[in-house]
């Protein structure tokens, strides 16, 4: 019996393809954001709000990842932005191959900001790089303030954390200070954006962060 050293990252193939996607986005001058969240946290609502708030300031494209259907892509198209739907057919996350295929279908020269809505799942998407420039986790008030304690790895490597549905705070037992404390324990630096896609409160700060990051890139 012979032992052979391998020392190869299990996701190295995905990571390589993610770098190719990233290079392609950079060539086209597109800044890409990977949006991750539980199902129902409001990723699509955030995209629609962002679309409305950035109109005239940047041109947005959207990639929608879901297990099935094109409900989300149709909403974005109806709101006037180019959108590509990826159906993973049961897969719990997007990967770099899927993103590469979706990029084929988008006119990258026509956009400068790409929002990628990952499959609704707080665990799996965080492990798979797509080629994005920044990673954003969307949490929401009804999910409870203890999510960062239950799912630390989901908050760990995020560049920003959005807390959606703050308009529901009076109706549920959500302790904002406890949430912020739990986020800070795993991620001391990512900006935190409490907002409501329903009322629009807090959306401006999020949009400012998005646009400022594009200029730096």
């Amino acid at each position, binding site marked *: *019996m*012979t*032992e*052979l*050293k*391998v*020392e*190869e*990252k*299990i*996701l*190295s*193939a*995905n990571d390589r393809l993610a770098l190719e996607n990233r290079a392609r986005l950079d060539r086209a001058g597109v800044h890409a954001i990977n949006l991750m969240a539980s199902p129902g946290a409001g990723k699509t609502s955030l995209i629609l709000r962002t679309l409305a708030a950035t109109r005239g300031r940047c041109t947005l494209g959207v990639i929608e990842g879901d297990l099935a259907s094109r409900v989300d892509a149709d909403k974005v198209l109806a709101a006037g932005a180019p959108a590509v739907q990826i159906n993973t057919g049961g*897969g*719990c*996350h997007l*990967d770099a191959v899927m993103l590469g295929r979706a990029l084929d279908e988008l006119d990258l020269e026509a956009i400068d900001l790409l929002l990628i809505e990952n499959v609704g*799942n707080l*665990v*799996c998407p*965080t*492990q*798979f790089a797509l080629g994005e420039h920044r990673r954003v986790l969307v949490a929401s008030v009804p999910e409870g303030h203890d999510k960062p*304690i*239950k799912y*630390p*790895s989901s908050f*760990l490597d995020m560049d920003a954390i959005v807390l959606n549905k703050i308009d529901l705070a009076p109706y549920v037992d959500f302790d904002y200070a406890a949430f912020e*404390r*739990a986020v*800070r*324990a*795993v*991620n*001391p630096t990512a900006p935190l954006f409490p907002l409501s896609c329903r009322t629009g409160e807090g959306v401006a700060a999020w949009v400012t962060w998005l646009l400022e990051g594009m200029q730096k890139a």
Partner: protein
Amino acid sequence: MHELPITQSVLEIVSRHAAAAGAARVTAIHLVVGEFTGFVPDSIQFYFDLLSQDTPAAGATLVIDRRPGSVRCARCGHTYQPTDGQIWMCPVCAALGGEVLAGKELFVESIEVAYTDDRTQGGREDPERQ
């Protein structure tokens, strides 16, 4: 849930290294899986047994080295293992969080191979013969 693509990737890596070494079959695979990756070793084994059928890695033993998470306190520098389901807090100075030193690992460390296919029918190696 995502153990399936992970296991496919493991099999691809293992097959490539075994073929490059001219090995006839793979008898063991050593994986390092960090606690923060969220991968479930039992599921990896389950998928591996399915996917490796009819490959040189069929019947190989998966040895998973599960690395606990380790965090270095940003305030006092003490290194500690966060307790699952509790806020990350330094047990020495009570500061929150810190720098993750370990727990994100996810790689194939090594494989054990044989250069002749002396497998008897039925797969797994008889431990008495080693």
